[in-house]
């Protein structure tokens, strides 16, 4: 009897569960009632960037030795898009673990010290001859995260202040640039060069690196960390010791007038001339969208690649293939959320890094869809999250959703200056469903 009772209940429960809902709804009924079912239709609209300009914020060109892919730049270039630029390279080397006795016991005059720099970057006239002077840096360089506007003084050499140790010339497309250090420098530094004690600490305390300064030519060359070495060898012996590069830093400056293009804004890497802009949430159409559902969002800064090509003289090389972009957003004073709340990493208390779509570069700087969605979802709900955006050139990071710094470069990029929302303008594109 009891089984029968519970069986009936369970049968009933099974029947209920077996009833599965299905439907084939249509538009029938949409118009019923005094307030017919309305809304819910998404629209796509563009919001032109406001306050577009190029603002300098010197790029980080220094590396304390942790980034194996870092580079330094040296040379002069007069690019129609950048104006005349000069780049001076700084680098330090570390002592080898041990130096063979053949070298240790040799007198200075029987030793040869050579700096070998393998170019991995060219900006300028590929037919130009580059003249570079070598200096010794006077004091310990704090190269880690040093910005391109910094300099480090050269050591006074015997009879002068900051005089060069040596000068070399190279064709801009040569595969190796070498400096032979003079014998007098070897004599002055012989004991330092031979000192491998304290795991190289003694050498590091006594020697602070070199500066490579442009003297002539129309090209800036870049040298990777692994392709830059100092070698000491005994003349006539097939034996040498190599000093590997540790720190790298590049000082970059414009030495003449900045060029201008009509209706265009020219950003220059290295100088840190990035494209800054904002979106006015108090003006149409954003002021009408408060509370609207954001379905999709992206910020696009298109690049005028024609201007980039047309302003390039014959035989003039710009490193284009590796151009990526990095966007730094400044939190609005009124922002009620942090960087993490909209899914972006914080760079400081007031700035966040906005991931980019790597594949869109170099033709445009395009923000990641998912992150943009979070940013503008929050912005339309609670007010602007970011007061402004700054698109920086991140050379050497072309296929990444660039958050990290680009490698030091002097590459220019031409952005459109129009503030109106057009196909050539920097703009925010929103697909929204109004409330």
């Amino acid at each position, binding site marked *: 009897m009891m089984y029968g009772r*519970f069986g009936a*209940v369970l049968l009933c429960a099974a029947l209920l569960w077996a009833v599965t809902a299905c439907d084939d709804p249509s538009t029938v009924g949409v118009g019923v009632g005094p307030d017919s079912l309305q809304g*819910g239709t998404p629209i796509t609209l563009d919001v032109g960037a406001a306050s577009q300009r190029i603002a300098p914020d010197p790029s980080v060109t220094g590396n304390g030795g942790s980034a194996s892919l870092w580079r330094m730049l040296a040379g002069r270039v007069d690019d129609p898009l950048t104006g005349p630029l000069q780049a001076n390279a700084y680098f330090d080397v570390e002592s080898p673990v041990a130096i063979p006795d053949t070298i240790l016991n040799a007198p200075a005059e029987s030793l040869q010290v050579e700096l070998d720099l393998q170019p991995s970057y060219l900006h300028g006239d590929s037919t130009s001859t580059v003249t570079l002077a070598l200096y010794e840096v006077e004091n310990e360089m704090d190269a880690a995260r040093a910005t391109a506007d910094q300099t480090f003084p050269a050591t006074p050499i015997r009879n002068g202040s900051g005089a060069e140790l040596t000068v070399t010339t190279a064709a801009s497309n040569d595969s190796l640039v070498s400096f032979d250090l003079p014998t007098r420098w070897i004599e002055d530094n012989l004991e330092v060069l031979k000192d491998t004690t304290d795991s190289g600490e003694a050498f590091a305390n006594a020697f602070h690196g070199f500066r490579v300064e442009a003297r002539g030519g129309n090209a800036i060359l870049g040298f990777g960390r692994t392709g830059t070495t100092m070698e000491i060898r005994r003349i006539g012996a097939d034996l040498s010791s190599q000093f590997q590069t540790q720190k790298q830093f590049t000082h970059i400056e414009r030495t003449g007038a900045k060029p201008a293009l009509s209706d265009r804004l020219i950003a220059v890497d290295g100088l840190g001339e990035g494209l800054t802009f904002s979106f006015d949430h108090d003006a149409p159409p954003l002021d009408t969208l408060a509370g609207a559902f954001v*379905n999709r969002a992206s910020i696009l800064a298109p690049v005028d690649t024609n201007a980039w090509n047309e302003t390039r003289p014959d035989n003039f090389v710009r490193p284009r293939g590796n151009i990526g972009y990095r966007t730094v957003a400044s939190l609005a004073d009124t922002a009620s959320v942090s960087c993490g709340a909209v899914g972006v990493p914080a760079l400081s208390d007031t700035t966040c890094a906005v991931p980019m779509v790597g594949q869109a570069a170099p033709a445009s700087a395009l923000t990641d869809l998912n992150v943009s969605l979070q940013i503008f*979802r929050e912005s339309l*709900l609670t007010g602007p999250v970011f007061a402004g955006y700054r698109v920086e050139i991140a050379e050497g990071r072309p296929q990444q959703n660039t958050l990290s710094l680009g490698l030091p470069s002097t590459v220019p990029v031409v952005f459109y200056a129009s503030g109106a929302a057009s196909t050539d303008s920097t703009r925010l594109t929103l697909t929204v469903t109004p409330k």
Partner: protein
Amino acid sequence: MISRRSLGVAHALLCAALLAFLPLSVQAQSTGDGSIYSRFGLGLLQDFSSSRSQALGGGGYALRSLNYNPAGNPALWSDQVFTRANIGASFQTISTSGDGQQTSQLTAGNLESVQFSFPLYERSLGVGLVFQPYSRSNYKTLRQGQIATGPNRADTLNYQTQFEGIGGLQTIRGGLGWTINETVRVGASLDVIFGIIEAQRSTRFTRPGLTGTPSGTRDAILTDGTRLSGVTGSFGSHFSFADVFAEDDALSIGVAFSLPTTLNGERVRTIDESLARDTLGTEVEGEVDLPWELRAGLAYHPDARWSLVLDGLYAPWSTASSSFDTDQAAPSPFPVGGNRTLTDRWRASVGAEIVPAGEDELAGYFARTGYRLGAYAEKLYVRPDLDTNVHVLAATGGFSLPTSISGTRVDLNASVGTRGTTEDNLVRDVFYRFSVHVSIGERWFQERKLR
């Protein structure tokens, strides 16, 4: 030692617990009645009294029975022998057509009722407990389109904007029925009404030829939810007369009255779905005043085989009001279209039942089966276009199948009907409903006596 009485109580509690959990499960998979008319007012009102009365047109306010414990008139709880549990579920398909000949099809399963009753004094004083829907707001209609997205409009997505009604009010009714004498019975119940009515608008995106929301895209889901609760009371009376028109016939009159009440609650707008919902703005508190409702019926039994019923219901919903009917944009006014969309409701039903065997429990199976037919007409309490009354016309029927367990029956009911009109920019629903009810009755709380 566990006594038989305590074992019976344990059985009863276990069953009650099981039955109490079932509604939640069932409602979770339900998409409801699927009528756009449930978008208005508090949703479509549910009138379930018992599975027997459902097959007889839906009234049965004077229909006394030992096999059922009708919720429509608490006076009927007085006449009980068995401790009884009822549970029922329905399966309904609705085809809706509009003026433009478009149609939509919605099919869904729903809980109809969970009822539990037992006699305190056999056939004299009984208790009834009922959990069942008071109203359902369940509809679904949509628009579809395509949209070009992205900075260069190079990415075309499909979208579907769906308007959906979810939820409704539930009622828990508990009360007593008392047999004053062979002619007069009275009853009263306390009715707790509670629930959430949600109107949801969702815009969902897909890439052509694919399913799922594309990466970097967010669906737009907006829900206006109204949480309401309140308490009311019902009183019922039942009068029985024997040998009225013929020898051994019986005539019953049943009248029940539900008091007007006020439901209190809050209305809030949320975005997104389920656990990810964010509340927009602040909750709006308000009240909904419900009108009184009068239910009356006649039941005539020419002999032990036949039962004939005639029932009516009236509620002046035009006097109902809601303080949620405001001018503010969010959340939107409630009820939809405002108080002016409410109008007086009436319902009339007739039905006939024959059990060929009458009271002969030794007759064949089909002779002990109950055969029922009924019909009803109803004027809905909502008038979406403020002018055109919406009527329901339906035929009902069913079989009441005896089981090998004395006091337990399985009822299979069906109804077919229309609701509304395709004129005046309205729609007409054609609905087919099938339901299954299990009614279990035993002497759970009473000591068995050796006779």
